[in-house]
């Protein structure tokens, strides 16, 4: 039992790390990774939603009729997203403003719905929480990697501190929209290279 829970947790960190291995939830990773700070905020907010929606879906898995299950999952997810929205508005208002509409859009993040449908509706609560936590942390890590790349190359800083010294010419392309696509594409390519060995 304990072993399988650990397995569910760790698969989100490498073997099925979203969004690189499961190509889901691409929008936030392109949009909010201009800096590591935003990436962490977005990742943690999503992780919270994944964990709790997985928990609730798993607890209710025998009660929700299968015909209306998708609608049920969406309501559960939307409830937790509203919680995150209100909490962030209250405690981290500047970050909330920066992330903008991407906080409410966690509702349609395919990872949340995908995990509910593919995992939580078939497994007991503990395993589902482990799965949600693994996916959430994996997602946060991916967001941070892309965020770190874009922030360091595009702005020459990391978490607001200069990293390359005064002579560095910022590669502004990385901070703009096209840079996001290219950067994510190349990270995906590197993941494929490593994964093949």
């Amino acid at each position, binding site marked *: 039992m304990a072993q399988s829970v650990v397995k569910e947790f760790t698969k989100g960190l490498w073997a099925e790390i979203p969004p690189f291995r499961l190509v889901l939830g691409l*929008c936030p990773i392109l949009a909010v990774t201009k800096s590591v700070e935003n990436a962490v905020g977005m990742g943690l907010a999503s992780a919270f939603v994944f964990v709790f929606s997985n928990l609730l879906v798993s607890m209710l898995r025998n009660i929700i009729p299968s015909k209306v299950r998708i609608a049920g999952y969406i309501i559960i997810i939307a409830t937790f997203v509203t919680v995150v929205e209100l909490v962030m508005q209250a405690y981290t208002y500047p970050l909330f403003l920066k992330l903008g509409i991407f906080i409410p*859009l966690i509702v349609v993040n395919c990872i949340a719905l995908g995990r509910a449908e593919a995992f939580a509706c078939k497994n007991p609560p503990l395993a589902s929480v482990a799965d949600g936590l693994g996916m959430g942390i994996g997602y946060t890590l991916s967001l941070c990697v892309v965020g770190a790349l874009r922030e360091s190359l595009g702005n020459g800083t990391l978490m607001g501190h200069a990293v390359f010294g005064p002579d560095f010419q910022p590669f502004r392309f990385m901070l703009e*929209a*096209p840079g996001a696509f290219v950067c994510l*594409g*190349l990270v*995906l*390519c590197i993941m494929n290279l490593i994964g093949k060995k």
Partner: protein
Amino acid sequence: MGDYIVLAISCILINNILLAQFLGNCPFLGTSKKMETATGMGMAVVFVIVLAGIITWITERYLLKPLDIEFLRTLSFILIVASLVQFVEMFLKKSIPALYTGLGIFLPLITTNCAVLGVCLINIKEEYTFFEMLVSSFSYSVGYGFALVLFAGIRERIILARVPKSLQDTSIGLVTAGMIAICFFAFKGMV
């Protein structure tokens, strides 16, 4: 009138929902391997976004705001989008079968297309009037379809090219999207 045209151009080209605002990327990469699927998806998106835009705007204006329950916005909007998509699907199946066969398979996918919810939320955030909302919903979704079709055209050619193994599929798709985004970037100085 001039304002509406400026708004339309800025929504289609400058703030293109896919390439500048990053909304709706999952179906963008998923359904853009063939021209036909891309066209079908594009049309379904236009249809649903305009309808959802109208309904959510009315809900916000006449229900959420007067009752002061705006914190329920996310919850109510996603429910509206989900049930609207279901309803449209049933309606088309019964009354316009020809259109249904064209759009049918894409409709269920649209519920989790963040472009739909995104446009509805942008309309509210920018505090558009009813007509501005109509123009923006329509132009955003046309911009989405436009980018999708452009991208599908390029992707059909990429299949014929010899791409390094680790760059294949999604990876090269993203890099291509980046290139198209550069082209759209050029419109930035227009308005």
